[in-house]
Structure formats: structure tokens, C-alpha cells
């Protein structure tokens, strides 16, 4: 802008830019589809096909393997039978999933906020601390809690050494299952939420404050609505994973509660009733699929993942 008489650029070259070949754009279009092929094939064979198989099995005669050779609705009838305890399992799973999702939103929010606004140069380290447990098998981590809470375990032993009565017996109770789920699924809430909060431009917060909003108003009017896509994904993820959770109930819950995935597993293994297990899996799949698609139809993944 401020130009001096000392340094004038050489006279501009008068070379015409060659027009871009029109075919290149067309080629790119199909290139995208071609790149997607390996993933599509994998998911068709490894995800869609098994779901179809389950669907087919769910109409087979109970306790048989006569897939495609028999058609019956008995399996579904059994699930929807009021006397069947499957309903209870489903309710337990729903309840756990709902509580997990709601509590994790509250637990993870301050951390997600911190990762975006407070931790500064430490935030990568803090993120790694939260990612790492994902790579340790969940049953190893859950078993650690057993060692912590068990009789003569870390808590009990410490309290006894200090002269107290000894630790409370919280193992093998429903609240412990919930705690285990909170523990295992925290990263699944935290990271989408962090991504969501990162989408709120600093300028908008400054502008809201400049226009007279207090902290609560900034949060409610600007921060929360703009971070919502991320928060929504986090909630969906934890809810859905919570519905399918089984290790928590088995390791921390003893046999006090049977969750829906456990029921499915029992049908597949001990009772060797694949058609019933399939029918249960179909119900769960439809429930989860409908929920997921409903949420996804409202989200723009490009924006959330940072497309410019």
C-alpha cells in the first residue's frame, strides 16, 4: 500500500493463464466415489451384511439355525410378551444410558471448556491423559475398580488402617454399574464436546460481552447454541454406547442387573437361541439407528470437523 519510489516492481508479464482443462473437474467427482469404495465394500460386508443376517435370523424358528428356511414371528412375540423379563433389561439399559449421558454432559463440560480456554499450552497433554485410557481394555480398567472397592481392597484397607469401620460395600450394586459406565464413556462425551466448543469463535464471545451480556447470558445465548452440534454428538455417542454396554454390568455389577446386551449374549451363548437373540438385536439396532439418524439429519459434519 505505502509504496516508495525506490522499489518499483518490474513491469507485469503479459502471459495469458491457460484455461483449466474442463475434464479435470469431472474426473475429481468420480475420484471421490472411487476413494470411498474400499470403505463402502468393507462396511457392506462387515456391517450391513451382518445386520441383514441378524434380521433374517430373527424370523427363524426359536432354538434352531434354520435361517431362510422358516419364517415365524414367535421371537418377536416372545420379546413383546409382558411376562418376559427382557423388558426389564431394556429399561435398565435405557435408564443407565440416560443417566450416563446426562451426568457425563455435566462432568465433561468444565473439562471441555478448560481444554479450549484455560489449559493453553497444557491442553494437548491433558487431552492425551484423557485419550490414553481408551487404549487400555475396558475390562482391565473396570477390574481396577473392583480391586479398589473390594473387601480388603485399596479403599477398605486404607480406611481400616486409619481406624475406621472399613469401606462401604458398593460393589455389585446398580449405582456402581453407572459409575463404571461414566468412567468408561467419559472420553466419548469429552472429545465431541471439546470439538463443539472449539467451533465457537472467540470474537462472538467478545462481541456478546461488548454488547452487554453477562457470563450466564453469553453461555446461554451464544456459547451453548453454537457448541450444540458437538455436545449433541457426545450425548448421542454416550447414550448409544450406554445402551449397548455390558462389561460394566458384568464386572462391577456382578449379576445384580441384567442389561439388554447381556440378554442378547445369553441368547446367543448359554441358551443357544440365536433367533431370539437376533430378534433382540434387531430391536436394539432399530432403536439406535433411528435415534442416530434423527440426530445426524440435524448436523453438518463438515462444519463440526473443521472444513474451511
Amino acid at each position: 500500500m505505502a509504496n516508495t519510489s525506490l522499489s518499483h516492481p518490474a513491469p507485469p508479464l503479459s502471459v495469458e493463464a491457460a484455461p483449466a482443462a474442463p475434464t479435470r473437474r469431472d474426473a475429481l467427482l468420480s475420484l471421490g466415489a472411487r476413494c470411498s469404495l474400499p470403505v463402502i465394500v468393507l462396511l457392506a460386508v462387515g456391517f450391513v451384511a451382518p445386520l441383514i443376517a441378524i434380521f433374517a435370523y430373527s424370523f427363524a424358528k426359536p432354538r434352531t439355525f434354520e435361517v431362510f428356511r422358516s419364517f415365524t414371528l414367535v421371537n418377536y412375540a416372545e420379546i413383546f410378551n409382558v411376562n418376559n423379563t427382557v423388558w426389564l433389561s431394556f429399561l435398565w439399559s435405557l435408564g443407565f444410558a440416560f443417566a450416563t449421558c446426562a451426568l457425563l454432559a455435566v462432568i465433561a463440560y468444565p473439562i471441555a471448556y478448560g481444554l479450549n480456554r484455560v489449559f493453553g499450552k497444557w491442553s494437548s497433554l491433558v487431552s492425551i491423559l484423557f485419550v490414553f485410557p481408551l487404549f487400555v481394555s475396558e475390562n482391565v480398567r473396570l477390574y481396577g475398580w473392583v480391586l479398589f472397592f473390594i473387601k480388603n481392597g485399596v479403599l477398605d484397607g486404607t480406611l481400616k488402617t486409619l481406624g475406621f469401620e472399613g469401606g462401604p460395600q458398593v460393589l455389585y450394586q446398580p449405582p456402581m454399574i453407572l459409575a463404571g459406565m461414566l468412567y468408561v464413556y467419559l472420553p466419548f462425551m469429552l472429545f465431541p464436546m471439546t470439538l463443539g466448543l472449539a467451533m465457537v469463535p472467540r470474537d462472538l464471545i467478545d462481541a456478546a460481552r461488548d454488547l452487554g451480556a453477562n457470563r450466564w447470558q453469553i453461555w446461554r445465548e451464544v456459547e451453548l447454541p453454537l457448541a450444540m452440534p458437538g455436545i449433541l454428538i457426545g450425548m448421542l455417542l454416550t447414550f448409544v454406547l450406554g445402551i449397548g454396554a455390558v462389561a460394566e454390568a458384568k464386572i462391577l455389577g456382578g449379576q445384580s442387573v441384567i442389561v439388554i446386551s447381556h440378554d442378547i449374549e445369553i441368547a446367543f451363548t448359554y441358551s443357544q437361541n440365536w433367533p431370539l437373540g437376533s430378534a433382540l438385536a434387531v430391536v436394539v439396532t432399530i432403536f439406535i439407528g433411528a435415534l442416530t439418524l434423527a440426530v445426524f439429519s440435524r448436523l453438518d459434519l463438515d462444519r463440526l470437523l473443521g472444513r474451511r
Partner: protein
Amino acid sequence: MEQEKARTRLFIWLWTAFVVVLLYLPIFCGALASVSKGRYFAFPVRAFTSEWWEKTVDSIEIGMIVHTSLLVAALVTVLSVVVAFFGALAFARYDWKGRRLFQKIVILPIFFPQPVLGLALLLWFSAAGIQTSWLTAVFAHLVWIVPVVTLVIAIQVYSFDPSLEEAAFDLGATRWQVMREVTLPILWPGIWSGALFAFLLSWGNFPLSLYTAGADSTVPKWLYSKMVAGYTPMVPALGTMSTLGAASALLLGGLVLWLLRRRAVA
């Protein structure tokens, strides 16, 4: 105002520290149990021993299981990175007709409960007449891990300026040269993170291995079977080793990633 801000910051730091402590407490408990004498764990630990670690290292059975786990994880890493690399390009780089749908399809398996997915695959393998083994477990892991890795790489792809590729084409490079000279070097950090995720997620995966590995056992599967019945302190010992192994892999991978990023900046 300033004071209130400082208090909020303090609260956030303390809360995060508290959650991190809870996150690592059980891992620590496991480590403690693996070095305490006696068949059953009791706290405070009266005597320490390396007996269980030695036994674990010497065990032929565990050696085989670790071998299987490593093999599965390595295979999953290589395959998933290749597939997910192209998947990520389709996800984030190219504008094509089916992209939005493709994005949703890719995400769906991540949102699917793994125990149910594992059982569905088991049923599918049996319907297709395939004997389950560690090879089918590799396939099962891919179904879940490829979408995750696709997302991880896609995040890097999003920050990639497509005009760089166009410039390279314009300067006379072939498609392969563009890939080798421009696209790959810029996406390396994302690809490496994806590989790291693939390896570690496969290494630690339990629900899919449980149903799809057949008679073969992986580390998490073996641990689980011993937790349910037949506890020995070798369980926390192997668990701790597996954790330490994952931690060193993460550290090493992180170091490489850091070097890649530095090279990209330099």
C-alpha cells in the same frame, strides 16, 4: 470480575485434576495388585514381589496370546490405514454426489454397540460358513476401527488446501506424483495419528474379539475369562504390562508425530 475469572479457572483445573486421578486410579490399583505377594489382593500391601510378572513373562500360553494380539493389531493397523486414507479423501477432500450420505454411513458403525456388532458378525460368519479365528477378529476390528481412523485422517484432510494439488497438476505433475510429492507428505501427521489409533484400539479391544476370535485368544479376552473365573495375580500383571505397552506405543508414536509436525513446519 477478574477474581471471579480466577476462581472459575481454579475450579476447572481442580475438577480436571480430580477426574484424571479417578481415570488412572484403577490402573494404579491393578499395578499394585500385580506386585503384591499372596494369591489374593489385600491392601495395604504387606510384601511386594515380582513373582507374578516373572510368571506372566515365562508363561507360554500368555506368550502366544500376546503374539496373537500383536499380529491382529499390526494387521488391523496396516489395512485400516490404507482403506481409511482413501475413505478420508472421499469424506473430506472431494466434493462428490454421495459425500453427505457416505459421511453418515461411515459414522454409523462407531455409534453401534460393539457387543451387538460382535454377535452380529459371529452370526454372519457362521451363516456364511466361515470358521472364526484371529483372522475373522481382524475383520471385525476393521469394521469398527476403519471408521474411527477415517475420521482421524479426515480431520487432517480438512485442513488441507486443495489448491496445492491443483497447483501441482498445473505444474505438470501426474496424479501419482501429486500424491507422492504433495498430498501424502502434508497428510502424514494425520495418517500417523490414524495408525496409532488403529493399533491401540485393536490392542485394547475386547467386545469384538470376544465373539469373533473363535478359539484364538487376545490379551483382553484372556484377561476377561480369568476375571470371571480363576483369578490369579497374573491377571493384573498382564493387564499392567498391556497398559505399559500401550503407553510406550503412544509415547513413541507421539514422538514420531511431533517430529513429523516439526518437519512440516521447518
